[in-house]
């Protein structure tokens, strides 16, 4: 039911977005994909260390959702947040520099892959405790309501966060206080290597909206327009003062949980099925067939992105390390 309804919403979204917007969506998705592919390469070459969780395959969720927001709206994410940060407007070069741990990085080399942040873009952080961002989103929603401002808050988290107390407490409090927060669950079927069915009692995650009396929908997270349409609806409600929503975007990560995951818990056949549903190929095909976009225009975008990512790596590589004398700077205000 929900899926059929959302197909209609997606068609509507396709009609609503003009060609420039659609091409911008395409550019962002390709940027994230190429960024992640390059990050994997740089990780293998030892340029990036620590944990590195890639978003390849899930681009439609971040890009579709953030396309439905205004610049002033807040976004929070998890440790798999390169995509959300870039979709919210971060330049790939400062994100790559952060992954390289450089002084020019978006968090000045203090955060790394899991802790990107930019208050000007209202990208309010990647958090590496599962479910940790949800209470913060409630608080940001409260700050907006308190100041009687119009911003809304979009909070991304994985299916792994559903069994956390923070998820249930946050939905309850946001519903109780009618806060402008959109909870976006990226259901990629695995919390690390644990199948969602082995971790969550509810088969359809969006149904957790029901006990908290807020709207909940499930969308095809491999279809950027479907995600966009659902978030547009939720955003309109939040802006109208009608409170929070829960969106379950069904998606798939094309790579492991992190760079150190050999992905032995899922079958090659399953992976092939999902690779065929690649959200970028999906949108590309739609643009060519349904919107009659000329292929050279897409190729031009792809070539541009290639150059942006190459520049990002060059910038990150050439940037200075943070100064050792500053190791304890920013622990406290002073």
């Amino acid at each position: 039911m929900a899926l059929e309804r959302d197909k209609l919403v997606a068609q509507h979204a396709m009609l609503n977005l003009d060609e420039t917007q659609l091409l911008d969506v395409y550019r962002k998705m390709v940027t994230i994909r190429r960024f992640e592919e390059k990050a994997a390469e740089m990780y293998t070459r030892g340029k990036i260390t620590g944990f590195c969780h890639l978003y390849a395959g899930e681009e439609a969720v971040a890009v579709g959702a953030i396309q439905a927001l205004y610049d002033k709206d807040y976004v929070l994410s998890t440790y798999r947040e390169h995509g959300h940060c870039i979709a919210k407007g971060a330049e790939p070069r400062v994100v790559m520099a952060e992954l390289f741990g450089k002084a020019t990085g978006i968090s000045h080399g203090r955060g790394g892959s899991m802790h990107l942040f930019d208050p000007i873009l209202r990208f309010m952080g990647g958090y590496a405790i599962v479910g940790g961002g949800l209470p913060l989103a409630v608080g940001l929603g409260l700050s907006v309501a308190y100041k009687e401002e119009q911003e809304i808050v979009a909070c991304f988290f994985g299916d792994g966060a559903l069994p956390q107390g923070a998820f249930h407490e946050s939905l309850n409090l946001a519903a109780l206080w009618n806060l402008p927060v959109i909870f976006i669950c990226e259901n990629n079927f695995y919390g690390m290597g644990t199948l969602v069915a082995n971790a969550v009692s509810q088969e359809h995650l969006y149904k957790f909206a029901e006990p908290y009396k807020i709207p909940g929908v499930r969308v095809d997270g491999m279809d950027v327009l479907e995600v966009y349409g659902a978030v547009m609806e939720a955003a309109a409600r939040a802006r109208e003062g009608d409170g929070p929503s829960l969106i379950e975007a069904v998606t798939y990560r094309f790579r492991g949980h992190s760079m150190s995951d050999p992905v032995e818990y899922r079958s090659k056949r399953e992976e092939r099925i999902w690779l065929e549903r690649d959200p970028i190929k999906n949108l590309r095909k739609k643009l060519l067939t349904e919107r009659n976009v000329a292929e050279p225009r897409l190729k031009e975008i792809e070539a541009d992105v290639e150059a942006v990512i190459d520049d990002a790596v060059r910038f990150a590589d050439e940037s200075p390390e943070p100064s050792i004398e500053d190791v304890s700077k920013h622990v406290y205000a002073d």
Partner: protein
Amino acid sequence: MAEISYREALNQALREEMDRDERVFIMGEEVGYFGGAFKVTDGLLAVYGEKRVRDTPISELTIVGAGVGAAMGGLRPIVELMTVNFGLLAMDQIVNHAAKIRYMFGGKAKVPLVIRTPQGAGHQLGAQHSQSLEAYFLHCPGVRVAIPATPADAKGLLKSALRQEDPVIFLEHESLYSVKGEVPDGEHLVPFGKANLVREGKDVTIVSYSKCLYDAIHAAEALENDGIDAEVIDLRMLNPLDIGMVIESVKKTGKAIVVYEGWKTGGAGAEIAAQIYESAFDHLDAPVERIASLDQPIPYNKHLEKAALPSPGEIVRVAERMM
């Protein structure tokens, strides 16, 4: 200057700060209609309304997390945790979030949040309602820890806390709410990181904070009858820690006793003793002594509870032995 209770001093600070700054609001379990489990927020709802005095569900983790988020969104939240024992449910948001956000985001974020919570034993409330957990917060860089003993400091430190740019854990003591003392009217700010020399003496330094400060003062009075002149220092804060005043005192007296209600092992006293050894070893005439709670859950029975907690008598015995 009026003589008011620790509870009234806190209430006064809250009112003054809420009058001064529209961004200041308080949320927590029972802070509104109930007036606070310990009546610290009594009467605030009627004056400031539900927007600024917010009753919350029993969701400590998310109340604190929402405070962190609201602070990031430009407000000045005060979160009241009904007691520190329940605050343990919020440790993820305190330790992993509030304390880390400024640093791990390269100084681009700030969390000006005040978490007020009472702690302590002495009311036969059993093991789960009688803890003093300041050491947990002292152990975590990124959060400031205020722990006032007097009504004047309760007011002055809370007002200062609400003007900080960093998260502050503000630890009150359940047994102090009715204690009265002189409190300056109006704008009274106690600076962060400054200990208070409560009593001058030359023979031994007694370092304390929170409720144990009163034990230290009583002990010092008793010691005076024995001809022992004790100096008493109220730390007032554990982070920043004014170890400078302690060191100066120890250089004069050559002896130090640290008195605190937390567990002895790994408690704040261990840190203070270590810092005394690091900076004043050559001035010590005796090992630094720690007087604290026994390393065990606090019992219910009145006599057992008393036996598990530090007392003025114990301070006197230890001080006499050191002479």
